[in-house]
């Protein structure tokens, strides 16, 4: 409703506009300018840095050019807040940037999305997972090449079924996306005959889960679903470790752990199961080449943030290259119908109906790693095919 109104407004505005921005841009510019709005400080500061490394790798690999022009990034820090994100993106678009790349938090990404719609500038999302970002017939210039929370919730239920878990106690961050994630999980549980024996909504940014964990211990649940990520997820798993909650209950969540979160959690992360956005251990030629080049450059394994950024930008730039045009509408049209056969995760297919890339889902468990792997690392146990995770378009 809200969005439709906005589109209507933006549409009317476009009709009466006297200065059609896209026409100005259609002339061949000196370079391909990417407005990269990421978090380099604030809650997701770490993520922005990794995404930058991945994105730069994607550009370096093609000799730093697209359509015969050099690619130029403007890296801007949104401090993990929407207002600076829009402010900085507006400035860069004013300077003639050809596209927006980012942001990290879903709130910033949604804010950038309305800017992209209004200014008719392509917008590439490679990390934010809120389902609202790729709603059906949503923002016409936005694309997401990474996971949605929805598919990760679906994976969680597939995992519950394959592990034969019967009773689940859940903790859900009190936040729109995770709340609807839990509702979806509840529905799937009902269909699968799995009982939800409890659920607590904990405030976003909660620092103490001890009371909730105590309730979990005293319950007869055999699985603990954690619908929270980042600090909240780490804090929960860390504190659960102090009472060995994972000893006779399986702890899992849609985006609960990856190598970075495991390192922050410590030994308590061992045995925790989680959906994974991207993993360096996926074995295919593209990924092997990417991981090797990344390790040479940075001396570490690429994180899921770096991997997703690399993958999305590489795909987008390939499509732009093939379009052989500087027309935004041509790019958007081509990307909406494109298939990325050589993604680092296998195959990704852009869905024209919601601009979401359909893709396989990785599911793993935290295990001990041997050098050169980190001390704690994700072992990918299952790869779910796309048709089990996405509804038909």
């Amino acid at each position, binding site marked *: 409703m809200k969005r439709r109104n906005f589109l209507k407004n933006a549409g009317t505005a476009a009709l009466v506009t006297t200065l059609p921005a896209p026409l100005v841009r259609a002339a061949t510019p000196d370079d391909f300018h990417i407005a990269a709005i990421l978090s380099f400080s604030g809650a997701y500061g770490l993520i922005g840095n990794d995404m930058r490394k991945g994105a730069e790798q994607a550009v370096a690999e093609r000799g730093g050019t697209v359509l015969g022009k050099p690619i130029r990034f403007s890296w801007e820090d949104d401090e993990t807040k929407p207002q600076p994100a829009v*402010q900085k993106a*507006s400035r860069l678009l004013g300077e003639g940037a050809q596209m927006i790349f980012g942001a990290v938090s879903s709130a910033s990404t949604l804010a950038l999305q309305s800017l992209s719609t209004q200014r008719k500038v392509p917008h590439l999302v490679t990390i934010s997972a809120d389902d609202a970002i790729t709603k059906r017939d949503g923002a016409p210039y936005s694309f997401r090449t990474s996971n949605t929370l929805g598919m990760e919730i679906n994976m969680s239920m597939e995992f519950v079924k394959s592990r034969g878990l019967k009773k689940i106690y859940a903790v859900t961050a009190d936040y729109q996306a995770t709340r609807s994630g839990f509702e979806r999980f509840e529905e799937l549980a009902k269909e699968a005959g799995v009982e939800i024996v409890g659920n607590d909504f904990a405030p976003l940014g909660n620092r103490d889960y001890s009371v909730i964990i105590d309730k979990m211990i005293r319950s007869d649940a055999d699985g603990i679903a954690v619908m929270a990520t980042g600090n909240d997820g780490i804090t929960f798993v860390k504190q659960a470790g102090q009472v060995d909650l994972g000893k006779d209950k399986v702890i899992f969540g849609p985006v609960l752990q990856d190598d970075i979160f495991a390192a922050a959690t410590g030994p308590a992360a061992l045995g925790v199961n989680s959906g994974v956005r991207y993993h360096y251990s996926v074995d295919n030629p593209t990924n092997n080449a990417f991981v090797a080049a990344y390790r040479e450059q940075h001396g570490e394994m690429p994180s899921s943030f770096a991997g997703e950024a690399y993958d999305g930008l590489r795909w987008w730039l390939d499509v732009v290259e093939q379009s052989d045009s500087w027309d935004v509408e041509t790019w958007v049209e081509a990307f909406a119908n494109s298939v990325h056969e050589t993604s680092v995760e296998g195959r990704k297919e852009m869905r024209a109906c919601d601009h979401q890339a359909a893709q396989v889902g990785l599911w793993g468990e935290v295990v001990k790693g041997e050098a050169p792997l980190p001390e704690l690392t994700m072992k990918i146990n299952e790869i779910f095919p796309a048709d089990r995770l996405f509804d038909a378009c």
Partner: protein
Amino acid sequence: MTRRTVGQTLMAVIIAAMIAIPFFLPGEQWVNLVSLILIWALFAIGFDLVFGVTGMLSFGHAALLGSGGYALTVLTLSYQVGFLPALLAAAVMGALLAFCMGLFALRVSGLFFALLTLALAQMVYILASNKLRALTGGVDGIPGVPRPDLFGINFYDNRNYYAFIVVVFLIGLAVMALLRASPFGRALRAVQANDTRASQLGHNVHALRQSAFVVSGAYAGISGGLLASLMFYISPQMLHWATSGDVMIMTVLGGKGTLLGPILGVAVFELLKEELSQVTQYWYGILGLIFILATIFLRNGIAGLFHGPDDQDQGGAS
């Protein structure tokens, strides 16, 4: 007094030049930056009516700013109200919330007033972030806040919207200048100087404080509406206590209790932020150092540089 007059003229000239720049320079960079500065400046001069003129440190102004932003957003998007009536409603919303907060907070004074306004605003923030999410969009906020729809002008063009902001800002500034020079303004200053004496002189101190807070709320509400429209977006971030901290910093940096000081404070703050963040990742730390130095050495803020050492806005509109 001469130095004072010269200083003020100089400040006015600088501000006028800043407002004029985007009309003459090409590119959108200045338009965006000065748009932001003027909106925040409107917020700051409203804040200073409570803080600098009446002498109450409010730490709850973020809630007033955000409530205005949400009022405009919800009215235009969900109820198809026109932009100008919605902007007016934003002012009313800010004033109304200020009135309600005042009912609680004005029972106490001094530091307790600061802490109570902080607590009340933080509660509004938490409510908007989760319990009221049906209305506010929760933490993710609401994208697609519209621009004005007037006279067939396309305000989605940032230059046109800038002109709109300038008009609103100048009206706001003029009204504030009149208010401060009026008997009402003088009475507020009397309250700040000595509230017991002010009440002996026949002023209703509580009503004066309440009125100042309400007017300030209206300014904050309008600023919030303009800001949401500038960004096409609103989220509870606008209500967070750090926003209250920012406006306080800007006002003190610029010179509290002066009409033009807070505007310069906002300009310097935003300009420093804009420039430093392009140079280094550690710009926040450098900004912090600058604040510390300014706190220690610039007793009367930037306005003090223009006014000379004796300042503290002794009367009349500056």
